């Protein structure tokens, strides 16, 4: 009896580790074929490239942890990338009209909070599924942003924003330090506070949380606001990365965010969406994109590879659930 109980998880753990093994295998393959891949310079590039995705993944992880990881009925926020683009759009447009950075930042913050609150209300009060809500909000927010920016590219050269990309503190880029700080704060809030544990309980089992007197709907609302805030911060990193706001960034960001977060779930030992998993997923996805680029693989193939990776990883994840 005991032996059976121990043997079961072990088999599923082996199957469960395959996604990570596949990923590492792909990276090893890349580094063997692209000699310049494993250099400090290049790894820094990978990290810098992944920063916007890491940020939105932190937000998405919060929403999924609060709402449960069933994609259709549980928690998901597809509107975060749109919020990020809105944050970038408002800031860029106002900067180009010579407002101070502070007032730009405040205006963008307000707009992003409105998005988060609307998401929260639609999900907890109206009872729409998060998937439907945030998909529709994605469209609406992108539409509003296109009105604000008139769908054109706006250059930004404000030194503070460029600093996110250029400045280094003790040879580590400022952007990486800031995002690392945000991830650590997020991790602390999620795993070392009462709020975070209750949030996870809400997503893990709604009934269990409610029986323990946890206000599930309030926590779900919080998670959408947190997600909007990560989108808000991400907006500035988008501005820094692209030296301005340009239309159309949101689609790719959304796909990478979903890919990275659910890859992260397949990596995590508890097999659920976690903050570390999402961050790791985001970095690995960026590493693979850059890796294939430095190998000289046609850029059109990367989408195919990413799509296949989701299939492989999610399929293994599903199989390991069954083995259990």
């Amino acid at each position, binding site marked *: 009896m005991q032996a059976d109980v121990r043997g079961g998880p072990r088999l599923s753990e082996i199957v469960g580790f395959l996604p990570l093994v596949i990923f590492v295998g792909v990276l090893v393959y890349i580094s063997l074929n692209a000699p310049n891949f494993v250099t400090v310079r290049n790894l820094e590039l990978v990290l810098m490239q992944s920063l916007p995705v890491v940020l939105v993944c932190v937000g998405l992880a919060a929403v999924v942890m609060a709402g449960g990881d069933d994609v259709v009925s549980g928690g998901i926020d597809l509107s975060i990338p749109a919020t990020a683009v809105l944050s970038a759009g408002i800031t860029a447009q106002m900067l180009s009209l010579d407002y101070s950075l502070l007032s730009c930042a405040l205006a963008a913050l307000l707009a992003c909070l409105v998005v988060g609150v609307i998401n929260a209300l639609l999900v907890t009060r109206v009872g729409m599924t998060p998937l439907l809500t945030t998909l529709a909000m994605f469209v609406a927010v992108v539409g509003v942003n296109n009105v604000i920016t008139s769908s054109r590219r706006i250059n930004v050269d404000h030194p503070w924003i460029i600093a996110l990309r250029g400045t280094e503190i003790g040879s580590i880029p400022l952007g990486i330090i800031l995002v690392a700080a945000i991830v650590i704060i997020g991790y602390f809030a999620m795993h070392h506070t009462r709020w975070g544990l209750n949030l*996870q*309980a809400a997503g893990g*089992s709604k009934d*269990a949380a409610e*029986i*323990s007197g946890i206000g599930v709907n309030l926590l779900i609302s919080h998670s959408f606001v947190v997600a909007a805030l990560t989108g808000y911060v991400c907006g500035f990193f988008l501005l820094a990365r692209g030296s301005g706001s340009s239309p159309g960034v949101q689609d790719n960001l959304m796909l990478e965010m979903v890919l990275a977060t659910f890859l992260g779930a397949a990596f995590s030992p508890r097999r659920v969406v976690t903050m570390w998993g999402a961050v790791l997923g985001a970095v690995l996805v960026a590493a693979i994109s850059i890796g294939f680029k430095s190998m000289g693989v046609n850029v059109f193939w990367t989408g195919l590879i990413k799509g296949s990776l989701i299939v492989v990883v999610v399929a293994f994840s599903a199989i390991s659930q069954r083995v259990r």
Partner: protein
Amino acid sequence: MEPSAFSLSGVVKEFPGVRALDHASLNVRPGEVHGLVGENGAGKSTVIKVLAGVYQPEAGEIIVGGTRLEPATPKTVHAAGVRFIHQELHLVPHFTVTESVFMGQEVGGRLGLAKRQMRQRAETFLRENLGLDISGNRLIRDLGTAERKLVQIARALIDGAAKVVVFDEPTAPLASEEVDTVMRAIARLKEQGIAILYVSHYLSEITDICDRVTVFRQGETVGVFDAITDASAADLIFAMVGREISDMFPAKRHRKTSLGLAVTGLSDADKFTDVSLNVGGGEILGIAGLIGSGREELVDTLYGLRRTKSGSVFFDGTSLRIATAAQAVRQGVALVPRDRRHDGLVLPMTVTENATLATLQDTARVGLIDRKAAKSATEDQIKALDIRPPNADNVTRLLSGGNQQKVVLARWLSTNARLFIFDEPTVGVDVGAKAEIYQLIEDLAAKGAAVIVSSSDPVELQGVCDRIIVMMRGRNVGTLPATGLSIDTLVAATTGAAKVEDLANAG
């Protein structure tokens, strides 16, 4: 006045068309384990919900620790020190033991949470109060069911304010060897002076652990028994089922007419091995067995819901292929599942839609449903089975348990099924509908169908079946003839207190 940790008196609770509690009363003394028994539908779960403050009763009062709760809401009840150990575990599988114990009542430290303190408190509490020595860092999903149950108990009691603890079927999901673990934990709680209300179907547990027992029948308190012994368990059963016990079951008029089902050496991947059984056309075979005995898995496998590993299944001499439920249905097997709200009915669909789901092709032309024909066929069934309210367009979610069960049955009666499997046919069904369902089962056998009844209710098995096989730890440990079989004997066989072959020889 007698000393009381809590009491309910004169409680009345009505639902549309039903009086679930009719002046029910209950009195639990400090430091005693008080049993609450009754049939399904006797009002046990309603009284728990009233005590929890979830239902507001029409009349009656609730007194906890000498104070009347007015009104009793989940908050006031909790504040008065009443804790509930629900039947469902309500745990998050990927949480640790510590996280689960302190869920919703986390302890803060200087920076964030006092994780180490919480872990130590959880481990100490589990070890000293419940007798479970376990690391607070283990994940719930790696624990056995009994350990999870103890974690659930710890969560309710860790704040130290509990005065009354209500256990609702705490052992239902446990295997027999795990039951002892939970029983020992309850005994420890009693020593600490906590009053315990113990609600269970398992009379052997009740007689083992309870100081006194209250019996409910049809929403009324029909008796309070002191110092229960095995000898008085019979009185308990008599009080529970009342005089109707003999009227409840139809006379057995069916007779074996054909070879029927023959299962030899059937095994699945892990839950049962080498099970053989036969049930002829016109016969009713019972399957007894506790939860975890492989009984449920055996039923599911016979219907194609689980994979077969080895063994053969024949019906009237020809091999049955039951790899999927769809195959089973096409070969004349019908299942009335135990979880009818989940597996039996598509709840948002109407009576007609549900009743005709397996026989759509009979009334269809070029694949299109003849809605008039389907409806009139259903209306005939509604009349024949006395489904109430008699409206074919009602959504099945709104029907009572007994009527829902009849709709499931109506679906299979219009197919030409030869083998009917009933899994817990009367769970959540009121007494009146129960008798009707027993009659329908008898009628099926009388018409020559082979019938299997799998049930956790020994009275039901004895009353309906010809023979009863007993499942234990994944094996068929023997067959008992129902005629002249006493309930105690059947219970003893099911729980492993007596060997089946000895009983069969003696009987």
